[in-house]
């Protein structure tokens, strides 16, 4: 396999994970204007729950679904008992609160399941599959498939359903949406649930591809920021495109410059975007507030 082919396959599998982290972030940002630093934390919990389900013998698909569903509910509950109270307050304060939440849930997961790397073996094959001339491992194929499903559901759901319409109304002008009878708090809760659920799936995809410490998974939540910014904070399609582009640049750096540059290069992209086009490729330009 040529090096460039390697770059492409790695871009797809890493990009899929960034996209899954990013899409939850975008959904939450659109509905509640909350900048979440807790996505990494939800990933850690999702990964641990997935492993627990696999150990119970639930199999790959069912374990993924159960982990995502538990986090979906968990995200809603967390929102209801804490963040619903500070909905619409200073974005800066809410962002710091999400840092607290992320730190807390990672630490609690480590207390429950231990700080060792999360390893899940034997639920998915290792023999590469040839797709469109690219040789993909079943793990990346699974990550890509989950990403495709999530994005399809969210894009169609937000464009075609009444819930999606309400979510967009809340994103535009919360007060006006409330006047029109939209349950703003309920919509925000749904956004939190989706964000946590998709982050759980990102966590599942990540620990299937490599074994990682909980803190390493948590840091990956921060590495998704360049991708989200590049795509545009409030664009779901942007989250996908940004994720693939950043993953591509990172993999170019890994294969042709040196793997120690991968994190720095992602944040160099972030700075470049900040200076050249802060609204990102697909975002709206009016995002002056946090």
């Amino acid at each position, binding site marked *: 396999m040529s090096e460039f082919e390697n770059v492409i396959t790695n871009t797809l599998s890493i990009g899929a994970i960034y996209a899954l982290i990013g899409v939850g972030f975008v959904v939450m940002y659109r509905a509640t204007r909350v900048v979440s630093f807790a996505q990494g934390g939800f990933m850690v919990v999702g990964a641990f729950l997935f492993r627990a389900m696999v150990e119970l013998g639930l199999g790959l698909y069912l374990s993924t679904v159960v982990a995502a569903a538990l986090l979906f509910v968990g995200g809603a509950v967390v929102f209801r008992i804490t963040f619903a109270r500070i909905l619409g307050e200073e974005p800066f304060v809410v962002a*710091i609160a999400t840092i607290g939440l992320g730190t807390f849930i990672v630490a609690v997961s480590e207390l429950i399941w231990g700080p060792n790397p999360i390893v899940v073996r034997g639920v998915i094959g290792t023999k590469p599959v040839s797709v469109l001339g690219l040789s993909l491992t079943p793990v990346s194929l699974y990550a890509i498939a989950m990403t495709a499903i999530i994005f399809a559901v969210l894009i169609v759901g937000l464009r075609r359903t009444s819930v999606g319409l309400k979510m967009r109304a809340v994103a535009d002008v919360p007060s006006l949406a409330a006047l029109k009878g939209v349950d703003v708090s309920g919509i925000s809760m749904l956004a939190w649930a989706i964000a946590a659920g998709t982050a759980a799936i990102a966590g599942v995809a990540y620990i299937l591809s490599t074994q990682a410490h909980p803190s390493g998974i948590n840091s990956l939540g921060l590495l998704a920021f360049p991708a989200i910014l590049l795509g545009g904070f409030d664009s779901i399609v942007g989250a996908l495109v940004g994720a693939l582009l950043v993953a591509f640049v990172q993999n170019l750096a890994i294969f042709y410059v040196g793997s120690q540059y991968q994190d720095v290069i992602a944040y160099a992209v972030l700075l470049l975007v900040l200076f050249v086009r802060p609204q990102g490729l697909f975002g709206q330009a009016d995002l002056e507030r946090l």
Partner: protein
Amino acid sequence: MNLPASPAVSRRAARGRGRPWTPRRLWSLLGGPALFVVVALFVIYGQSGYGLYQASIVLVYCVVALGQEWLTGRAGQISLGAAAFMAIGAFVGARTAQQSWAPFPLPLLAAALAGGLVGIVIGLSSLRFRGLYLALSTLALQFFVQFAALEYQGGNQGGVVPPIPKLFGYEFSEGRPFVILMVVIVGLLLLLLRGMYSRAPGRAWAALRQSEVASAVSGVDVMRWKLAAFAGSSAVIAVGGCLFAYLTGSATYQPYTIYLTVSVLVMVFVGGTGSMVGALLGAVLVGLLPYWIQDIGNEFADNPSVYAWFSVHGATLAIAVYGLALLLVLVFEREGLYGLLRRLWLLLLRGIAFARPQRSEGDAA
């Protein structure tokens, strides 16, 4: 916002010229420093061995927390760069301290200068970005500094080792001498910051925090004061980093992760934003909580399984408590520990005030 029409008049008023020396004014002016001196003397002479080491950590955290509080609490700017600025201060300071031409206070000044310069660069980006974008550019700084520190250190596991600070032949070695040094530094810093916050700069930052547009309209030079806050706060945090390198004996890349930044945010927000006492309380909490948890574990010395659990998971438990505290403070009690304590104090005062008339009634009967 309390912006006066005439700066000359306000300056006189702020310094209190012509006001009588009432006990209340004396208390507000000297009460804080007196309390600080009493606590400091208690720590220096009442503690020994391990207690002095814990005090050193807490005092270094105090410097960092005061620096972060300057930017976040006073000027209202979001920054996730605390660990990065600490790393800059640690490496620049430790490297300077190794030079023969740089006797003790000079490394601290070098750290402050380096931190201040980088702070100005980040501050310049804050003129362009606000809120989230600013947070992300400081996060980028974190990744760059971490990378640079790793590359600079290379295979050198020991890091940059600074010599023990020495002033006029007196060595501030670990233990009581270092604590004395730290108490002096924190005391001077507190005096400096209090002086600034109660005068024009403090008012400018308070205005900036509430509304940049409104403060610009009221004649506050937004750019100047923003840059000043970034430069000053980063310089203080960098000095904290340099002192941290002195305390731990070397500057290495390992401690300066994003998690350190999170603990600095915990100090500022859980302690209570907008007050120096809050930042100090936060530093004490973050510095001592792991030891308190250890103490709880030691209570179970006769129960090996519980004891083992605490020794393995104690540090993680402390992090869980910080995280939860940060979340709960921002959701339920915005003023943090300081706000809670002040409210308790007011309740107590009201209780006393309530008790007095009852007693006089009793006397009358």
